[in-house]
């Protein structure tokens, strides 16, 4: 999840969406058959009364990667993520988890996947109001049939992990919103899932708590490396948490890429409108703006930054140093140069 940790592109996809469609209405299959690529979702809604919530979405999420889907309200994010665990069934398409199509599974097999591989964190927390914190956290293990003592022990560890030590005997309504979502997080982590789906988990929290929770998540992810799909409508959050970010609009992915790719090369005006105010210093790396070394340049004694260093982290150095700064790759070899001017230009998106 930290920008430094990007899963190796050669690992096979942990989750793969293939041409996922979801249409709401009375006869979604029929509408889907008759639909032509030129028709917009608004036209379809007007003509048939059917809502195309997800429209032919394909993507891969690699193991250990955090894949963020960012879009405005009503763009179909929740519907998409709910298709990934079949809380709603896609109208067409395939959801492959470790290469196995979720849509082909029988009820019992699906349940097994949900119990052992997946966990979900919800926007409105989805806690069980009648259960104490500890029993909420232990729920996933309980339905799996784990023995009482064992699951409570595990739940206690998770509660501690999310910083709620001492709250295990309280009921959800006795907790603040931020604390409730920590319970939601602990509940998801308690089952030790391979995949965690987050549907706007922090949107209901106020900005300070939200930041705190984001940092918390980054901290946890730095050690756990869960494969995550994270839904948000907040572009800054997407940049902060995502290894890769998909921008969703009207049920379709407009652009998928690393935060840096999005900021540097927005595919269209829609994406550009979001990236305009992005904190570029946190997103763009030195490697992205470096210029090749002029022939005969002597790097000895010159200050250097790593290729994957963010501009923010280069600022102090370029400010203090009048000449060019070397950019070195992981092996330490000289890759290029940056200087005060190029960094400043990149920061103001000139």
């Amino acid at each position, binding site marked *: 999840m930290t920008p430094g940790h990007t899963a190796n592109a050669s690992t096979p996809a942990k989750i793969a969406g293939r041409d996922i469609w979801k249409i709401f209405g009375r006869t979604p299959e029929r509408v889907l058959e008759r639909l032509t690529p030129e028709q917009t979702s608004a036209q379809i809604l007007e003509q048939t009364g059917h809502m195309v919530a997800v429209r032919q979405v394909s993507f891969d999420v690699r193991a250990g990667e955090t894949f963020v889907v960012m879009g405005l309200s009503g763009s179909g994010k929740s519907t998409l993520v709910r298709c990934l665990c079949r809380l709603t069934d896609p109208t067409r398409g395939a959801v492959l988890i470790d290469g196995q199509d979720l849509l082909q599974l029988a009820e019992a097999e699906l349940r*097994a996947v*949900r119990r052992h591989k997946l*966990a*979900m964190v919800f926007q409105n*927390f989805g806690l069980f109001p*009648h259960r104490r914190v500890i029993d909420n956290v232990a729920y996933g293990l309980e*339905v799996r049939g784990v023995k009482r003592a064992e699951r409570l022990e595990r739940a206690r560890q998770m509660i501690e992990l999310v910083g709620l030590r001492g709250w295990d005997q309280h009921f959800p309504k006795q907790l603040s919103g931020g604390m409730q979502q920590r319970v939601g997080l602990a509940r998801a982590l308690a089952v030790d899932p391979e995949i965690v789906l987050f549907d706007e988990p922090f949107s209901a929290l106020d900005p300070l708590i939200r930041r705190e929770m984001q940092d918390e998540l980054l901290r946890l992810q730095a050690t756990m490396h869960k494969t995550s799909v994270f839904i948000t409508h907040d572009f800054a959050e997407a940049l902060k948490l995502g290894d890769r970010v998909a921008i969703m609009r009207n049920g379709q992915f407009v652009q998928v890429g690393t935060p840096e790719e999005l900021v540097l090369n927005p595919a269209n005006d829609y994406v550009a409108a979001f990236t305009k105010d992005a904190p570029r210093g946190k997103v763009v790396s030195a490697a992205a703006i470096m210029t090749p070394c002029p022939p005969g340049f002597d790097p000895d004694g010159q200050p250097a930054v790593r290729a994957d260093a963010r501009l923010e982290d280069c600022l102090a150095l370029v400010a203090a140093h009048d000449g060019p700064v070397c950019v070195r790759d992981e092996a330490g070899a000289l890759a290029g140069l940056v200087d005060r001017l190029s960094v400043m230009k990149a920061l103001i998106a000139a």
Partner: protein
Amino acid sequence: MTTRPLARPWPAPLQRYAPWAVVAGLFALAAVWPADAAQFPAAWNLGLRAPIDEFQSAVIANRETIPVFQYFFDPLSDLIDVGLRWAEDFLLATPWIGVVGTGALLGYLLGGTRLALLGGLSPVITGLFGLWEPTLQTLALMIVAVGLAVLIGLPLGVLAAASDRVDRALRPVLDGMQTMPTFVYLIPVLLVFGIARVPAVVATLIYAVPPMIRLTSLGLREVSPPALEAARAFGSTRWQLLVKVQLPLALPAIMAGVNQTIMMALSMIVIAALIGAGGLGREVLVSLQRLQVGKALEAGLAIVLLAIVLDRLSEGLSRIDLTDLGRALLAPAAPRWLPARWEPAWLAAARVLRRAAAMPAQWLAALTRRPEIERYAGLVNLGLAVLALVLVDLLFNVGTFPESWRWYLRQPTDALVLWLRDNVFEIQLGALTVGTGPLSDFVTLYLLNPLRSLFTTFLPWPVVVLGAAALGGWAGGGRLALLAGAGVFAIGLLGMWPFAMDTLSQILVTMLITCLIALPLGVWSSQNNAVRDFLRPVLDFLQTIPSFVFLVPVIMLFNIGRVPGLIAAVLYAIAPGVKLTDLGIRGVAGEAVEAAHAFGATRAQTLAGVQVPMALASILLGVNQMIMMVLAMVVIAGMVGGAGLGLEAVNGLVRSETGRGLEAGLAIVLLAVTMDRITQAWAARRQG
């Protein structure tokens, strides 16, 4: 008042005068119809009676050999009988202080000090009345009937929540079960479960189970979707979903269903006694037959006490968090009457008590190595308390309520009734004789008799049928016209025409008097909080005390005849009229009232011009409720001289002339359904 276009809009003048034209036409028909053919033709009687009676004798004669009885109904009723006996024996074998203590403890756990007093004192009072045994018999019947209702209602409610199909299929059945006068199924139930007190249990069960089903289904359907979704996402099976999430979250609604079921069952106590239930209901009935006002009042009060205690306890159950019982018991805030300087002492004492009370659970938790038991300190203590009571009984042999402790209400009550009879029945005021006797005569001579002759002799049957159809059409359109006409016509086919017309005339007079009392009271109560606060407990009392209890003094004061039943029905039916009128007027939007004030309307003008018209739909619903309650009293009225359909039904029941009872019962249902639909349509029309 505007007339809603029925099929297609009529021209305005037609719309306006059509009702009058219909009325005029009906009168014309009445005038030309031959006077000797006013009664419904006897030849058209369907003659249901004979085959039903034959069927009944056949069933009784061959009971042992008919498979349905042999292998289903008889074992089932044996089972219920055993359960009832067991519950009764258990309760009667419990030492009286055990019952009192349990009542007090449950009251304390579920509602605090006041409910503890109520739960502890009520059994003592019934014991003082000498009604210990009947009260416990009734309680046993309640436990079995309500227990069965829960056992049947809960799964049905779960099914109805899970499937729209089941829900759609159940809904009309439940509606029917609740609107149908109980007498209708008393007879078949008697036939099918003819052993001892079982029919009473089954009839109570049928009457009481609908709210259990409805509220369970409602509660389950309203469980918050996020929690459900989360449970699904973690891979719960449907069963796990139901047991771990849906049912616990629906618990308050389910408990409200139990509460409603208990209240419905309680309202059946006396009627169940008619078919052999025993207990308090029988006490009321017997005292009634012997005109022992005081004894009937005592038994009635015992029923009211039982009703209040069970109501409050079950209501408390729907509020309480079972895991929090310990806290409910152990965190008593200092009462308000305590002087401030005593508060620290109180709190210290409470702390000590709390620690002491937590000990048994802690000890048990340590013993069994199950720390979660500590949470259930309240339950553990309850169990210990019960154990202690049993021990006390074994040591001191407490037994049943002491014979020598008696405190009766009957002598003063009887004396009061006698005094009233001597002093109120007839009062000579100069040349005028007033009092309840003359009042009764007046109502009979000038209201009941003329109306009865109107329906039985003056108005020929086709006019009544067409009149009902016209009323139905005016209130609810073509289909209702058909239903109303057919309903009344069918009463004729059952051969119940004269009885039905007699009953109808009584119902109309009762409704007139009820409305004249209830509606002004409702308006007054809506304008004045003091009036409302005064009326509320009175109305609640009127609704819970078994109607039979008013009958006795009323009979003594008004003579046997149609009037006592009428008065009992008025008393019974007033409550919803007052409540719904009050509610409707208070519910009129504040802006409308303010607008009226802004235009300088006086309070009376606002009331008459804005509030009452806007509240009319609610008031009409009150009228509908009143009609249904008056109809529920038809049978009771029939028993005390009201004759009509009620008497027919009772006679069919007690003389076990099933056919006759069934015909009368069906006629009551037809009357009820017709009047219910017409008033409801009328109310709905005002709303729309």
